[in-house]
């Protein structure tokens, strides 16, 4: 039996959350506005409209490039990408072709204890299109979103499993939110995912001679489903001795299947050429250093630090670092408590981590308040010794079998008794004290 191996690459579009659009001063936040109420000569593609790029969008693209370990092209430019579609007002999209802002990066993920590195081919800046709505006989067009800044991230075809893809995308999503450059809201379509998939025999060198692109998916699970569906479809065809046709497919999330949209025969010829309306970008070393300095600690670095400095378990560190807000909060609480806690300092980070992960304490509290509640929960209990000894007597007489076991050498039996006493004490006792008292009594 032939063994097959999927070959998967990704294209990810991230809508930036700048205040203004990419090439004009209209509002980049188009969400929920009356149709066609957020346009100007530029983004509506009026005769005579000219683009001027948004400075912050360029900075943020550099920032994303840096976060993905890319090298930044000091010389970069915009190009026109031509095709006709009703949501594209000018008949071309201003994008970047052969001189994108960032190239040759990577992103690592840790799966099953092993680190895997996936290469990022390029990161470029472009503009979003308007929005289409299909209803009855009509397709309705709203250009409010037209020209909102969009960053496109393209990976190398380094993936061979849908699971890795999903994890990679989740990590990327976390990084984007760390950078604060996009609301990365999947439902609103602020992050749109396009896997390209092919399958080869495991022994084959290089890449298969076809690939299938699945367009515009807006959930990590759907990407996984689309890949699973495609891989199976390709294998079925390959088994029959056929090569799956190179094409672009859509994803139907009701049926969880993909469907053909455009085949190779009518493939697009985008006729790229340098956008004459926008002078090129020349990014100085100083500018690049300034932006690099703005890079926050990345989630992977945080995990490492939490493991090394706090002694956290990988999984706990991972969970705490999924949202930068939560991680920052966690560290704030630690700093707050470190100086004046009576809790064992070495144990504090892990215990606090448990609180945060298990939501034992509300992370919406101001962190000082959280700290004092945590202190309360963690500090050694005041034990009512009189009550304790009464209860110890009670527990011993009710569990004579266990006491017998203990006395005949089963050291562990004492823990059962401690548990029983703690239960009777309704938690109002320090476990160490209980154990001590019990042992004294059992001597």
């Amino acid at each position, binding site marked *: 039996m032939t063994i097959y191996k999927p070959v998967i690459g990704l294209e990810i579009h991230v809508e930036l959350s*700048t205040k203004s659009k990419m090439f004009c001063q209209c509002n980049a936040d188009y969400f929920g506005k009356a149709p066609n109420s957020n346009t100007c000569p530029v983004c*509506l593609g009026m005769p005579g409209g000219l683009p*001027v790029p948004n*400075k912050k969008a360029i900075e943020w693209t550099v920032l994303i490039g840096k976060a993905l370990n890319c090298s930044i092209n000091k010389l970069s430019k915009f190009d026109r990408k031509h095709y006709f579609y*009703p949501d594209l007002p000018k008949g071309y999209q201003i994008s970047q072709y052969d001189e994108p802002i960032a190239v040759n990066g990577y992103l690592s993920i840790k799966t099953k204890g092993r680190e895997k590195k996936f290469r990022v081919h390029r990161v470029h800046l472009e503009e979003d299109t308007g929005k289409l709505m299909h209803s009855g006989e009509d397709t*309705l067009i709203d*250009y409010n979103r037209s020209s909102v800044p969009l960053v496109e991230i393209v990976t190398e075809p380094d993936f061979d499993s849908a699971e890795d893809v999903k994890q990679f995308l989740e990590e990327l999503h976390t990084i984007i939110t760390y950078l604060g450059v996009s609301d990365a809201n999947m439902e609103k379509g602020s992050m749109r995912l396009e896997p390209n998939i092919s399958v080869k025999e495991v022994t084959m060198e290089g890449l298969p001679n076809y690939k299938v692109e699945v367009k515009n998916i807006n959930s990590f699970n759907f990407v996984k489903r689309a890949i699973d569906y495609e891989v199976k479809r390709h294998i079925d065809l390959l088994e029959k001795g056929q090569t799956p046709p190179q094409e672009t497919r859509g994803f139907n999330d009701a049926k969880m299947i993909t469907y053909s949209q455009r085949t190779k025969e009518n493939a697009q010829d985008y006729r790229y050429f340098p956008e004459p309306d926008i002078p*090129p*970008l020349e990014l100085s070393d100083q500018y690049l250093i300034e932006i690099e300095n703005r890079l926050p600690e990345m989630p992977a670095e945080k995990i490492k630090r939490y493991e090394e400095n706090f002694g956290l378990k990988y999984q706990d560190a991972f969970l705490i670092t999924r949202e930068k807000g939560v991680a920052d909060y966690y560290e704030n609480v630690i700093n707050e408590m470190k100086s004046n806690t009576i809790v064992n300092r070495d144990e504090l980070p892990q215990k606090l981590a448990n609180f945060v992960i298990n939501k034992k304490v509300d992370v919406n509290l101001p962190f000082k308040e959280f700290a004092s509640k945590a202190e309360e929960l963690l500090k050694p209990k005041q034990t009512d010794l009189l009550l304790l000894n009464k209860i110890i007597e009670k527990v011993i007489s009710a569990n004579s079998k266990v006491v017998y076991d203990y006395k005949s050498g089963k050291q562990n039996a004492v823990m059962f008794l401690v548990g029983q006493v703690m239960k009777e004490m309704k938690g109002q006792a320090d476990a160490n004290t209980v154990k001590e008292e019990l042992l004294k009594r059992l001597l």
Partner: protein
Amino acid sequence: MKKTVNLSKEDILHLAQLANLKLSEKEVITFQKQLTETLDYVENLNELNIKDITPTNYSTDIKNCTFDDGTVCERMFSQEEALENTNEKKNSYFVVKRIM
């Protein structure tokens, strides 16, 4: 030496499709001839030595021309202005015949 570029009818129709133009039979033939004539003329560029020459993609020396994010928009159209030059509208949307 001039090399003549011969564009076939299919070539013309393919270009028309890319350019979103519908051409009549007659236009196809006219453009076949005219495009060839133009392409013949511009062949004179091959007389020049352009090895190692950097293309001039921009007509100025300007670099990094940008605007500051959040600059007040002084030219936003009202919904009415955005839609006033078309008859193809419905409920304040532009409208085309359903495409999918």
